[in-house]
């Protein structure tokens, strides 16, 4: 049971001492950016008239000379950030995920990725937990859009503590990075000893029956699901995969070889996101029974975040049901 030459620390799901508090990852971003601004004067921040929502407003207030509001012009924001990076600055460009990755996709492709610029795209309001604003403002395709771009690193933190580490880490690493954050408050899930590294997943536990690979808010759902499954004598592991690109392939190989079923869980379309990335890798390397939990090729709608998670099948109970049904089918098929 090795991972990167080290023994995987497996304290069991729910046994870790969790640091931090329940908070929205966008709030953690606001704090992390402020800290970063104090330490480094090459950090500049851009926003497209949503600095109150993306929480870049905190940085703007503290460092008005290094904050540029580009107005409601996402394409221009990406171009301006690209130009700033060419003068050695480290621009963090923020707006809602749907506008950042959708409206300005080609600018990200042509300027940021093709020229491999040191631009950090940190978007808030990822997924359907945007809530009442509805489908126009809910980003369910952003990971797919960013993952397909060469040179791009894609990160989806699961809680506030991890978000702070992610923001600090990406400032020190050259190259284009997309970070997806959320609007709604999420429980703290990462343990105190956790250290974020790009491309490295965190296994809470590797299960013998199933392993659930999750990103973002679905990590806490996966943990809850694993606890319920344990009570039913199903050994389900949980792996937080914050870096969707590049994937932690070593942990995937290990997890897939350890169990009968791999389940991915994401607050994103099942097309092109974490589920696709994991399926693509495992299909070619360790073909294993798989299930993808996510938005099933549809748009979101208005509602409270928790209502939407239920409606779109993104709760711990949905994960439990999926795991049980798939394991049952697997057993039946192999008899």
């Amino acid at each position, binding site marked *: 049971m090795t991972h990167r030459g080290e023994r995987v620390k497996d304290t069991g799901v729910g046994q870790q001492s969790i640091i931090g508090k329940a908070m929205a990852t966008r709030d953690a971003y606001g704090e992390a950016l402020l800290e970063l601004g104090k330490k480094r004067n090459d950090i*500049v921040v851009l926003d497209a008239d949503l600095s109150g929502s993306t929480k870049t407003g905190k940085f703007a207030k503290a460092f008005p*000379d*290094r904050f*540029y509001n*580009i*107005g409601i*012009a996402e*394409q*221009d*924001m*990406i*171009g*301006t*950030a*690209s*130009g*700033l*990076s*060419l*003068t*050695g*600055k480290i*621009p963090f460009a923020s707006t809602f995920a749907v506008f950042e990755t959708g409206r300005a996709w*080609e*600018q990200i492709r*042509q*300027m940021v990725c*093709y*020229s*491999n*610029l040191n631009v950090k795209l940190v978007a808030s309001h990822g997924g359907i937990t945007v809530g009442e604003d509805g489908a126009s403002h809910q980003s369910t395709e952003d990971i797919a859009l960013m993952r397909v771009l060469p040179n791009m690193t894609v990160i989806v933190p699961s809680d506030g503590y991890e978000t702070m580490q992610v923001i600090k880490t990406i400032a020190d690493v050259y190259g284009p990075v997309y970070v997806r954050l959320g609007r709604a408050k999420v429980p703290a899930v990462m343990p105190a000893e956790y250290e974020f590294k790009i491309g490295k997943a965190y296994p809470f536990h590797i299960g013998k029956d199933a392993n659930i690979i999750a990103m973002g808010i679905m990590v806490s759902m996966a943990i809850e699901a694993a606890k319920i499954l344990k009570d039913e004598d199903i050994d389900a592991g949980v792996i937080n995969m914050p870096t969707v690109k590049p994937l932690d392939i070593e942990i995937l190989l290990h997890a897939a070889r350890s169990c009968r079923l791999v389940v991915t869980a994401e607050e994103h379309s099942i097309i092109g996101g974490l589920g696709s990335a994991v399926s693509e890798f495992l299909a070619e390397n360790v073909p294993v029974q798989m299930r993808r939990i996510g938005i099933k090729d549809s748009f979101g709608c208005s509602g409270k975040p928790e209502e939407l998670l239920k409606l779109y099948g993104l709760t711990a109970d949905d994960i439990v049901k999926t795991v049980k049904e798939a394991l049952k089918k697997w057993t039946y098929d192999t008899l």
Partner: protein
Amino acid sequence: MKKRDIGFLRQQATRVRVEILKMLTEAGSGHTGGSLSAADVVTALYFYKMRHRPDDPSWRERDRFILSKGHAAPLLYVVLAMTGYFDISVLKTLRKIGSPLQGHPCSKTLPGVEISTGSLGQGLSVSNGIAIGLKIDNLSSRVYCLLGDGETQEGQVWEAAMTAAHYRLDNLCAIIDLNGLQIDGPVSQVKAIEPVASKWSAFGWQVIDIDGHSIDEILNALDEAEKIKGKPSVILAHTVKGKGVSFFEGKVEYHGIAPTRDELEMALKELEGNGQ
């Protein structure tokens, strides 16, 4: 700054056109019309106006040139080669596999190219970002951004125009190559952009209207733009697409095709005749 020698710059502009046509013919494809129309402006920038060091392309205090109309790549490649960024023999590799001279400029393969362009409407935003960065660093370097006239149909150009005015980017000078033609026909028929001067003026820019083939007017405009404080300036360079070769001039067909060997021979005769 180099000596203001109009005769010398005219000669260089003719040489630039000769090399553009030769490399395009060798490549067998590429954008002839828009490379020739902007040749005088870009020659004036690289051989006279811009502070740059061909042996140190990332010199911190250099003036920047952003070719927003990236399809005029042959023009950029020729001036980079002629001013010493790379050997002129590399020009014949244009558009060929493994060449640093990609069909549209690529900053990863060719030092001297500030950023990869080709998809229209994006260079002015990048120029704004550079101009802001230079101001943060208290550098007096200037940013020059060349756009096509058809390119200004892209909405992002106007987003960037607002940004430059809002942040008072007086270290930025946009130049629009008003050759009047785009792929599908005359700009005025495809989708009119007039009145160009009053549009830019209304967006908060200092507008300088010139004959884009008069080296004298180009130099005066570039010097005038440098003196404008508190706002960005735009030089409206009225040009002729395919300028310098009579049978390419004003012909929309030569937007995106290269000369044949026979056309090259005739064109070189004409240019060499004019150059003497």
